[in-house]
């Protein structure tokens, strides 16, 4: 090679080797899954796996889904091996992520069949739990998307969720559920505004500001709950929103109870994700917001008010997180406990990255995380030899893999995390 290569070509080849490397790593991963399914799940599997799809008194009852465990395991292993070899020989570079996603889905199915072999298990119940558990994660992720799209890193989601949960319980006890919900949204918005003020006006480092808000909210809510709630229990006894059945759709088997017989938080989350997607990608305001996140100086030059855009979006993100926080009290138990969000905000952050800074992606990622969460709960019942802790870790490991770009890379908005100083 004596001649200097054309830079564009060089760039293209570089990208290509990146894709090939991803395909190869994915191929290894699929082969590993195939081996796992064949040699671990296939070894001591006996009998049929019975999945209950309907409760006996449902209007449109479906029969149980019965899967013979051993043949299913081997078929899955064969498909996984085929996909892996195909990727490994670079036959399907274009479909890397699709093949990997499908492979993971099959592996999870094989795992479920293996775990349930010889027993029976309510699939609908687990899916329902998945959706319920995904709600705060999805709303946290959506809050992250809204603020990171204007280049404000939002570590404070955790604190906003906790503040929403606390306010929901306190005001909900005094004024009823709806009042509590509005108050939680308002307080979430307040903390969003505080975050915006700290990072935009006072130019505090964004991550420090987030950590501080988390510490502050944890301190205040824990203090009040141990100082005040101990004596005045009526202040911590909020009503819980009951599930609302959507007519006709709610009676459908499987998807009825999973999607159309839930409380307003589930519907709210879906609506908010739809509205946020429309706002960010199909309105003028959304385009401006994204411009502020990608290149604030250019946006400023074109006359967009960078500071105001950041204030507005981060405040709205706080309101979304406040709504998600209210789920913990008004949507499930009606009572506030110290640190009851337990890191869900950070998982929401992971869902945002997993969903590649897109509202729908964050929702999907939240469903995956919710599934892992509810699966972990059921594992204890099914009594499998795999420790449930490893399953609980898997979403976080997957997030690290994704952030590191080993299998596909998630790209944040270009100006993410940087303060903007107007000239």
């Amino acid at each position, binding site marked *: 090679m004596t001649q200097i290569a054309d830079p564009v070509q060089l760039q293209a080849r570089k990208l290509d080797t990146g894709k090939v490397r991803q395909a190869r790593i994915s191929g290894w991963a699929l082969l590993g899954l195939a081996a796992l399914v064949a040699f671990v799940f296939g070894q001591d599997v006996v009998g049929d796996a019975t999945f209950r799809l309907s409760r006996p008194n449902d209007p449109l009852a479906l029969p149980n889904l019965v899967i013979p465990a051993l043949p299913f395991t081997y078929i899955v292993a064969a498909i996984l091996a085929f996909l892996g070899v195909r990727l490994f020989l670079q036959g399907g570079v274009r479909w890397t992520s699709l093949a990997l996603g499908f492979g993971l889905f099959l592996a999870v199915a094989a795992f479920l069949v293996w775990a349930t072999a010889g027993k029976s298990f309510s699939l609908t119940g687990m899916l329902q739990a998945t959706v319920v558990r995904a709600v705060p994660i999805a709303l946290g992720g959506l809050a992250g998307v809204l603020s990171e799209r204007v280049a404000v890193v939002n570590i404070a989601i955790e604190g906003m969720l906790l503040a929403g949960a606390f306010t929901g319980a306190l005001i909900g006890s005094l004024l009823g559920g709806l009042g509590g919900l509005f108050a939680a949204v308002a307080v979430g918005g307040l903390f969003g505004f505080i975050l915006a003020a700290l990072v935009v006006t006072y130019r*505090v480092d964004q991550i420090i500001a987030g950590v*501080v808000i988390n*510490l502050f909210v944890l301190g205040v809510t824990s203090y009040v709950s141990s*100082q005040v709630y101990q004596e005045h229990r009526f202040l911590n006894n909020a009503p819980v929103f009951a599930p609302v059945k959507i007519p006709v759709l709610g009676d459908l088997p499987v998807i009825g109870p999973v999607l159309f017989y839930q409380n307003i938080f589930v519907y709210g989350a879906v609506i908010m994700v739809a509205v946020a997607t429309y706002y960010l990608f199909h309105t003028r305001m959304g385009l401006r917001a994204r411009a502020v996140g990608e290149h604030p100086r250019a946006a400023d030059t074109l006359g967009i008010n960078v500071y105001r855009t950041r204030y507005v979006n981060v405040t709205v993100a706080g309101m979304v997180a406040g709504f998600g926080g209210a789920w913990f009290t008004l949507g499930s138990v009606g009572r506030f406990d*110290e640190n009851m969000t337990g890191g869900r905000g950070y998982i929401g952050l992971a869902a945002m*990255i997993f969903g590649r800074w897109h509202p729908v992606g964050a929702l999907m990622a939240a469903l995956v995380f919710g599934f892992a969460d509810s699966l972990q709960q059921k594992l204890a019942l099914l009594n499998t030899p795999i420790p449930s*802790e490893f399953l609980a870790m898997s979403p*976080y490991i997957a*997030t690290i893999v994704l*952030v590191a770009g080993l299998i596909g890379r998630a790209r944040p908005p270009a100006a993410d995390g940087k303060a903007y100083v107007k000239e």
Partner: protein
Amino acid sequence: MTDPQPPGTLSDQLLDRAAPDRTAFEDLVVVPILAVFIALVLGALTMFATNVDLPTIGRSYVALLEGSVGSLSAISETLTAAMPLTLAGLGIALGFRAGLFNIGAEGQVLIGGMAAVIVGFSFDGLPAAIHLPLALLAGAIAGGLYASIAGWLRAATGAHEVISTIMLNLISYRLVDYLLRLDFIQREGRADPISRSVLETAELPRLLTWIDANLRLHAGIFLMLAAVVVIHWLLFRTKLGFEFRASGASPDAARYAGMRAGLIIVLAMGMAGALAGLAGANQGLGVLGRATPGFSAGIGFDAIAVALLGRSHPYGVLLAGLLFGALEAGGRQMQVDAGVSIDLIGIIQALIIVFIAAPLLVRSLFPWAFRKLAKVGRE
């Protein structure tokens, strides 16, 4: 992360560095003192807002003072609480100096503490002179390796360390839950997740039991002081420390000067994790004598505050660690004497950091404290 510097030309900045004027003094000394003051006032207002009467508020702040420095046992408690905060805070400060934001101290404390406890109960019959250093070393290495994962990912793939350390925190909680149920770790005859007890030969010896058997001050204090001195020497007197600071101040300049950016990131992260691991070992071997789920008790997050308050300078971190230790110890006394929940201390700590991190806010609240000093400095 660099300190928020007032925008100015390069020559202004160089001049500031050569002859620090009153502004630097204000940022280093006046702002922290005012921050602590405002935080205490706002803490009193919080109590007032939750129906605590004025005499009780007064009594609680007296108890806070007494419980932190009012007696020998209070000082012992303050120092005991300050040790892990200072150790982990030093690690985070080291990361800040190298331009890394390590949110993962909590996980590194857990993993380091777990390793130290496991070594602490595993080797029966070793003399204390070997067993104790071995257990401490295990804690430091485990914490360091765990943090290096994030450092390596940053260096090799560009994955941002804030995200990967948050994920490593979440993973570490599950990992500890799992480890505590393993046969050789879980205490015999117990169904709940609790480890075996650390053997006497691996315990950090208590120093003041000859005065009163209840004094908990232990040999970890030497560890803390040694770490402060060593990190100060490392940062400001060695080539490696210079490379850390150069990479933190200007990664591009450091790279052009021929420093190996990737290696520096991994080393800085690993050392930060080793210090956090030592903090965990300090808790496991000196205070608790066993491991339970979440025995880190938020030390890793408080340590971020300690590093910020100490301005990422080892001696500053020591002072900040002592202050937070005093708040912690005094808070317990406050809870007993005045019946005010210790969670108030969390509010005060968070408020201190808000004001430290936002000097502009403090300046706008107390313009008189600064205008006067600034005038003197500029003349």
